[in-house]
């Protein structure tokens, strides 16, 4: 086999491959022999048609699949020999097929995008400052309080008690914008706890000081995007920050009851109800929980830093085909999320064309990171195993409340998303590898000022 490589662009190569004459002839003869067995022709017994006669009847050009396979095979061999690592779909030039002859070598060329060389050298022993997570007493107390509040009892406060922070209020409310009642911003007998910040910013604070039985109005600045249904979706919506003035809403409120939660003492009984034997054990469990949570957050933060650093060091522009695939994947994911949340695509305000432009930057960023991770995985011999895939399916199934088989089917049926999933797992594995090879400089968390 003969081949040569032309360098078209930094990450674009043209492979010229020549398949030798004998190989072509052999393949063609094989194909005719096979065809002979299957074909019926008057005057000839099956399988006994002279090849010369057959060649006139069935021209060689009709063996498209044969040549496709042959080219694929030689293309892969050439890849193996040259050590090129392709990414995206290769473009195979078929023009040579038109005037193919049995006794001539077949020449064809392939244009392909290749993965960049591993340029990131120092991915081992990266130095990061790692915050040594310390669970402060305050955090601990807060969590403990939450646990206790599950066992607390509510006490109705007398009518002259003015609402304070942490009080539990029962209210009726109705929101108005420009004197028009707002949809979805109305409730009767609504219970809220001041200080939990579940309502709009400033809503809860303005309730402080009022007494049960009072009726009054408060004004609240609405967050941008308040009336868009897409709030339920975690992606930023392209074009979301356009034309959003500060909307002020007026809420009419009727305060019905003020209650206070009285916390019980932490006793062995409560510990038991929470599933622990002693009070100390409960305390320890809460502490460990908080600690883990903090450690995890810190780990995530560092991993993000690693990713950013990789992207920074990786200054090669990813090939266009890969970027496009990433954008497509992002859009597909978005559509899927919209569908999952039970909305129609038209209602969500999501415009794929807009997204294509606005997400481009992000897609380039992501692809750079993935490619960097991939090249490291290559260098470190990290691979995705069947077990990893199964683990991922299970995780996805748990997250989306679907059956594992359904998830598997959905991913397997689409080669693009399968590819994406393996890339993702590979990325995670590589990331873990880098993380475990980092050098950390520990520092103590400063106690939160207040």
């Amino acid at each position, binding site marked *: 086999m003969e081949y040569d490589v032309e360098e078209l662009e930094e990450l674009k190569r043209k492979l010229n491959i020549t398949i030798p004459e004998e190989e072509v002839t052999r393949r063609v003869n094989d194909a005719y022999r096979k065809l002979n067995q299957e074909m019926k022709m008057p*005057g*000839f*017994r099956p399988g*006994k*048609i*002279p090849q*010369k*006669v057959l*060649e*006139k*009847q069935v021209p060689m050009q009709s063996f498209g699949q044969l040549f496709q396979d042959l080219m694929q095979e030689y293309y892969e061999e050439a890849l193996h020999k040259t050590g090129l690592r392709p990414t995206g779909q290769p473009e195979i030039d078929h023009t040579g097929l038109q005037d193919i002859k049995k006794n001539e070598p077949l020449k064809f060329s392939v244009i392909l995008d290749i993965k960049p060389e591993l340029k990131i050298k120092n991915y081992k022993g990266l130095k990061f400052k790692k915050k040594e997570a310390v669970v402060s007493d305050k955090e601990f107390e807060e969590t403990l309080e939450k646990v206790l509040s599950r066992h607390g009892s509510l006490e109705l406060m007398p009518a002259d008690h003015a609402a304070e922070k942490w009080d539990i209020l029962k209210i009726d409310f109705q929101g108005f914008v420009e004197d028009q009642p707002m949809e979805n911003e109305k409730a009767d007998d609504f219970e809220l706890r001041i200080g939990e910040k579940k309502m709009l910013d400033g809503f809860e604070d303005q309730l402080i000081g009022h007494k049960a039985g009072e009726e009054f109005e408060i004004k609240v600045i609405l967050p941008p995007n308040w009336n868009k249904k897409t709030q339920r979706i975690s992606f930023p919506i392209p074009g979301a920050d356009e034309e959003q003035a500060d909307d002020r809403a007026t809420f009419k409120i009727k305060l019905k009851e003020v209650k206070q939660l009285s916390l019980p003492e932490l006793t062995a009984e409560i510990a038991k109800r929470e599933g622990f034997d002693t009070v100390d054990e409960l305390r320890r469990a809460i502490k460990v929980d908080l600690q883990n949570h903090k450690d995890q957050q810190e780990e995530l933060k560092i991993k993000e830093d690693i990713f950013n650093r990789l992207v920074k060091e990786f200054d090669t522009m990813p090939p266009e085909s890969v970027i496009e695939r990433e954008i497509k994947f992002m859009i597909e994911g978005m559509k899927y999320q919209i569908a999952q949340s039970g909305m129609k695509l038209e209602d969500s305000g999501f415009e794929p064309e807009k997204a294509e432009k606005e997400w481009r930057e992000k897609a380039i960023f992501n692809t750079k990171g993935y490619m960097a991770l991939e090249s490291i995985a290559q260098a470190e011999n990290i691979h995705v195993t069947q077990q990893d895939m199964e683990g991922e399916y299970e995780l996805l199934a748990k997250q989306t409340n679907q059956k594992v088989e359904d998830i598997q089917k959905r991913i397997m049926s689409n080669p693009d998303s399968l590819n994406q999933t393996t890339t993702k797992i590979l990325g995670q594995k590589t990331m873990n590898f880098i993380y475990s090879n980092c050098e950390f400089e520990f520092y103590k968390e400063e106690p939160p000022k207040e």
Partner: protein
Amino acid sequence: MDIYQVIDKPLVTEKGTTMLSDGNWVTFKVNMDANKIQIREAVQKIFNVSVLRVNTQIVRGTRRRFGRTTGHTKAWKKAMVQLKEGDKIEIFEGV
């Protein structure tokens, strides 16, 4: 007999192709009433080749049964014509 009435159609068969490669023989289905001389003339004129020999054979009709009625297919005349070395008829060259 007009020469265009002599030859009915060329025969392309397994045996025919073997004969073609062995001794440059071509085979035809011809008019029952045509004789070897007429066949020679017809082949030479129509295909512009020179003929060395003509062999003929009457292929008997084979018995056929259709339900309870019996009968037979028509008998026909086969002609095997040997061409001069180097001469050829395009329609026999791999059909």
